[in-house]
C-alpha cells in the first residue's frame, strides 16, 4: 500500500476524477493513463480524457479475508468494471444491499479508500455503486 504522500498525490487526478488517456490514432481509451499506446506505441497521438465513470460489472467477488489495511471492511465487494468507453478497472462496489450481479450497471462514487494510521493522510478515490438506486428514485418523486 502507498505509504508516502507524494506517491498518492501524483495519482489524485486519476483516483478522484477518473482521468485517463485516449489515443486519437487508434481511438482506444485507457485508464489509468498510459504514456505509450499498446497498439500504436511511439506513433500514438495521446490526449487526456476524463471518463464518465459509468459502466457494467464484468465479474466480482466478495472478500472475507483481506490484507491488514482492509480487514475492518470485510466482507466487501470487489469487481472488474468495464467503463462505457471500453477500458476495464478494478474497484469496490458499495451500496448494493440487493447484491451484486454480472452485468449490473454502476456509477462512480467518491469515497475514503484508506488512511495512513490515525495521524497520516487520508486516501480518497473512486468506488462504484448501482446506477439506479431506489432511494434516489423516491426522492425524485
Amino acid at each position, binding site marked *: *500500500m*502507498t505509504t508516502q504522500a507524494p506517491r498518492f498525490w501524483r*495519482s489524485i487526478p486519476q*483516483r478522484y476524477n477518473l482521468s485517463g488517456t485516449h489515443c486519437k490514432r487508434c481511438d482506444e481509451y485507457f485508464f*489509468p493513463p498510459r504514456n505509450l499506446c499498446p497498439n500504436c506505441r511511439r506513433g500514438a497521438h495521446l490526449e487526456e480524457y476524463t471518463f464518465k465513470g459509468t459502466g457494467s460489472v*464484468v*465479474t*466480482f*467477488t*466478495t*472478500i*472475507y*479475508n*483481506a*490484507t*491488514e489495511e*482492509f*480487514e475492518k*471492511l470485510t466482507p*466487501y465487494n*470487489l*469487481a*472488474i468494471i468495464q467503463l462505457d468507453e471500453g*477500458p*476495464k*478497472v*478494478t*474497484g*469496490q462496489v458499495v451500496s448494493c444491499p440487493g447484491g451484486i450481479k*454480472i452485468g449490473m450497471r454502476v456509477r462512480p462514487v467518491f469515497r475514503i*479508500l*484508506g488512511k495512513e494510521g490515525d495521524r497520516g493522510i487520508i*486516501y480518497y*478515490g473512486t*468506488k462504484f455503486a448501482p446506477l439506479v438506486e431506489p432511494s434516489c428514485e423516491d426522492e425524485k418523486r
Partner: protein
Amino acid sequence: MRSVSIIGVGCTKFGERWDVSLRDMIAEAGVLAIDDAEISGEQIDALYVGNMSGGRFVEQEHIGALIADCAGLSRLHVPSTRVEAACASGGLALRQGILAVASGYSDIVIAAGVEKMTDVSSGTAADALAAAADREWECFFGATFPALYAMMARLHMRRYGTTHDQMAAVAVKNHHHACYNPIAQYQMEISIDDVNHSPMVADPLHILDCSPISDGAAAVVLAPTEMAKKLSESPIKVAASAQASDTLALHDRRDLTTLDATVHAGRAAFVQAGIEPRMVDVAEVHDCFTIAEILAIEDLGFVEKGQGGQATEEGLTALGSSLPVNTSGGLKACGHPVGATGIKQAYEIALQLRGEAGRRQVDEAEVGLAHNVGGSGGTALVHIFTR
C-alpha cells in the same frame, strides 16, 4: 544454440520450516542437487536463483551473492544472479540457466529457487504477495490475490458452467497425490465437502481452494547435452523453454478466463519441442488456486476451453489416467514457497522421467511439462522435458 540437459536435482521438504532459515534451505537443496549430479564446486560456471521477495519475507536482498556464499562457492567467485518474476521466479531462474548453457557462455550451471515465507505474520506475507499484482490500480482498491483468481473463477462459472465442486476436485486430487510425496507440505487426504465447508476467503474460493504459505528450496544442475551424456547415466533433456508476458493488472487482459501468457508460452514450447499437447505424459501446472489449474489445462491445450472443470471431475488429470497433472501435489498440497516452485516443478518432472517418483510414478513417462505463472498471469513459463 546447444541442447541442454538436467544432470542433477535436489529439493528440501516444503512446509512451515521454523527450524531452518533461507540460508539453511538453499544450502540443503544445492548440496542435494550437486551430490545427485556427482560434480564438484570447481566445475560450476554460474548460479541463477529465483526469489520473489527476500526483502519482505526475511529483510534480505542480494540473494545471488548470498546463495553463492551459502553454497561454499564464494572463494571460487562463481557468478551468481538472482531473478524475480513473482511466483514464476523459479521458472525464470531455470530459463536463465538454460539460456546460459545453450548460448555456450557456461557449461555447468545451477538453477535454484528459494522462499522463506513463515518468518513474518500471514498478513505481512499476504501483502508481500500482493506486490505481484498492480499495487496502484488493484491492491490500492482492496484487491488480494485470492480475490483476483476468484473473479476469474466467477466468470468461468458463468460462461462455461464450471461448478465449485469441480474446482474442489482439483484440491482433492492434488492432496491425494501429495500423500505419495515425502517432501509435500500436506500429506493428507481431503474431500469435496472439506473444501466446500472450509472458510470463505474470496467468494467463490474457500481456504482449501488456495495454495498455502510455505518455506522451501529446490535446485537443478544443467549441462550441455553432449557433456551430460558423459556425466550422467540418466540425463533429462530440456526439449523446450518458453516465456511470455501480459498486462500486470488482471482487468487489462483481453479475456479474464484465459491466461494469454500461458497460451503464448505453451504454443512456443510445443513448437520448440516438436510435439502436441496430447503427447505429454505428466505435467506440473501452476495451481496457486484450484481455478488456476482448470485454466492451465485449458490454456496449455490439454482440454478444450471451458472443459477443464469437467475433465478434472471425471478424473482425467489424476494419477493413473492419461494425463496426470501435479503428481507432486502441486502448489496446493506440496506447498508454494514462491521462488522455489518453478524449480520444484522441474525436480518433480525429472524424477518422473527418471522413474524415481516412488508411489506416485507415472508408468513409462517420457515427456513432461512444467508450467509456472507469475502474479495473475503477467508472466508465464513453460518447459518441456524428455528422457
